């Protein structure tokens, strides 16, 4: 499909699956493609149909988040010209996301008729940024021949990402941080002065200072699991509806997370794993929450290691209760609800004691 030949008035629709690292990078990706003149569509929120479709297309052994991702990509096959399925090797030096992220576009191509439809840059910042930039240029060249335009779009997308991250640390959930960060899309962010950073800083005092009368629960888990309300059986909103303050690992500033993760004798080479573990250690050591809830994916390789390290630390440091809930496509909602309620009751009893 060579849109380039037709000039700019023919829009190409780029589909972005609402799954996996959508929750960390969507504002950046969307800005980049929109700036290059594309229409961006996002798949709808996860529902039973999407998950079932993903389960059909993926191999049994795959973890639920990967199956959810498959479902989202399949749903975009009809509505988008191209689908953004990056090969996410690494977003920082010496660290990776997960082996499965490294093979995503290939797994998708093997499972559904997506040949030639994927935009699949290799995002690898583990070694040097040079290759990464050439990947950006390669991706941008699908839309325009102008290197300047691509460069500009990328710079803008970085600003939006910063704004989005500040919004997260300011205590927003990803979906609202996404719409806030993209608001004023027409150039407003060029003047982004970091105002959300100030809100974030103010909010940090509240987050880091520790519990008051409300029960606060530290949430540990992969963004694509904890923020996907279908996949996570709305655990977060259930907690909030029950009057709890929810602090997810993404609301902690990087420095806090990194400092805590350094308590390990060895560099933890998974970006998401370090966030989860660092946040857990912070919650456990600072006692800034009443309890921690670790939401894990059945069969997740990272969770099996990181979860074990967290559990041992929780036992050692003693007084913050930790519960872990493992989810897959067969998990019954009733059981999860009962366990979450029992956990909250326990936290309440402890608090009033």
């Amino acid at each position, binding site marked *: 499909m060579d849109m380039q030949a037709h000039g700019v008035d023919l829009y190409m629709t780029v589909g972005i699956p609402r799954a996996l690292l959508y929750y960390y990078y969507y504002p950046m990706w969307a800005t980049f493609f929109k700036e290059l003149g594309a229409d961006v569509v996002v798949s709808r929120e996860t529902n039973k149909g999407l998950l079932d479709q993903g389960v059909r297309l993926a191999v049994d052994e*795959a973890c639920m988040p990967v199956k959810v991702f498959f479902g989202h990509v399949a749903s975009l096959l009809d509505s988008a010209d191209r689908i953004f399925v990056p090969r996410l090797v690494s977003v920082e030096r010496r660290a990776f996301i997960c*082996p499965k992220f490294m093979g995503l576009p290939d*797994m998708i*191509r*093997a499972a559904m008729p997506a040949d030639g439809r994927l935009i699949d840059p290799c995002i690898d910042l583990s070694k040097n940024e040079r290759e990464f930039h050439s990947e950006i240029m390669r991706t941008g060249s699908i839309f325009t021949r102008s290197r300047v335009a691509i460069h500009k779009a990328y710079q803008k997308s970085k600003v939006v990402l910063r704004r989005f991250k500040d919004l997260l640390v300011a205590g927003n959930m990803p979906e609202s941080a996404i719409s806030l960060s993209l608001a004023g899309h027409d150039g407003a962010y060029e003047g982004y002065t970091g105002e959300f950073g100030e809100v974030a800083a103010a909010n940090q005092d509240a987050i880091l200072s520790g519990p008051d009368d409300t029960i606060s629960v530290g949430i540990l888990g992969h963004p694509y699991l904890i923020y996907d309300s279908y996949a996570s059986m709305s655990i977060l909103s259930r907690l909030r509806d029950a009057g709890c303050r929810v602090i997810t690992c993404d609301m902690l500033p990087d420095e806090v997370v990194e400092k805590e993760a350094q308590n390990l004798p060895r560099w933890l080479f*998974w970006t998401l794993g370090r966030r989860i573990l660092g946040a857990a250690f912070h919650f456990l050591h600072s006692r800034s929450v009443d309890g921690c809830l670790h939401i894990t994916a059945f069969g*997740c390789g990272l*969770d099996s290691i990181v979860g*074990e390290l967290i559990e*041992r630390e929780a036992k050692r440091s003693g007084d913050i209760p930790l519960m872990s809930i493992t989810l897959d496509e067969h998990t019954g909602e009733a059981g999860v609800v009962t366990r979450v309620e029992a956990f909250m009751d326990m936290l309440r009893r402890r608090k009033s004691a």
Partner: protein
Amino acid sequence: MKLTFAHMGHLYIPIGALFRHLGLEVVLPPPSSKRTLSLGCQNSPEFACLPLKVNVGNYIEAIERGADTIVMAGGIGPCRFGFYGEVEREILQGLGYEFTMFIIDPPQGKIGPLLKQLGSLVGPVKPRDVIYALRLCWEKVTGIDRLNRLAVKVRPREVTRGETTRTMTDILAEVDRAETIDATRAAVNRGLSRLAGIPQRQDGPPPPRVGLVGEIYVVLEPFVNLEVETRLGELGCEVERSIYLSDWIRRHVIGDIFRILRPDPLLSLARPYLGHFVGGHGLDTVAHTVEYARRGFDGVIQVMPFTCMPEIVAESILPRVSKELGIPVMTLVFDEHSSDVGVITRLEAFTDLIMQRRVRLGEIGECAVTSV
């Protein structure tokens, strides 16, 4: 100091020899057994991959035999293996065992830190002794691989079922006992002629060729893969393993020390289906499947531990390779509940399928292909 390390196939033979010749006392874990597995499972995280669980069982049983020092390889990701050592240490400490753990990190182009680490483990030794120990170790590695490569050819043709496997057990014990390079060579050569001397049937079509791919630990450890290589052989298939220890050491250890930067032939084989390294042996699995298809193999079997991340990537891609290159592929996933019966049934079904396919290809020509 009484040193031990986890089992992985016949690795204990060369590695044991290496450490003994460096003047260390080695206490091997007893061969992995049901008890090993249940000790490992009881004490490991439920969702850890199988190799970690068996490692933990091995360590416990070695400590029971008096070992006090554990040597383990480290890693830098992306797969779990790089963190095995840390978790295993925590588990064993939590159980109250007293021991020291050496986690040896991959050199990544720098030999200095590696030598220092090894130095602190081994203590002062003469360079001559180090070189001899390394050569002896290498002699055993390559010898065992040569024996294995011959055994898989003899096994499907043997007249008395089981004779190859029995003979191999004997030969390997002899290779293990050999204390010098010369004695090792002699044992290997004797072994090769003993294998060649096993009565084999001469008539009939050549046995079907099956490639064995997958995660290294499961490929190399018969206890965990429920003897898949032997069973396939005894079902009449000639098995070629994608991973032999000597190849692996050449590529990963020697290649890593000297940072041999050449285009990875595996990557170019896999490229149409998988365009990137995915940790562990995921890329190797895809590449070798392509290679076996091109070499006209009759089928490929992928073996992996339950929840193995790189192999799940490969497993997702193999159906496409199978379809496009016309080679039957079957995946076997192993965990602590895997049973002999289950594996035998599936292997029998698979060999039936490839036998039928052979007949069909012979009758109706090249274009008929089947995939699993």
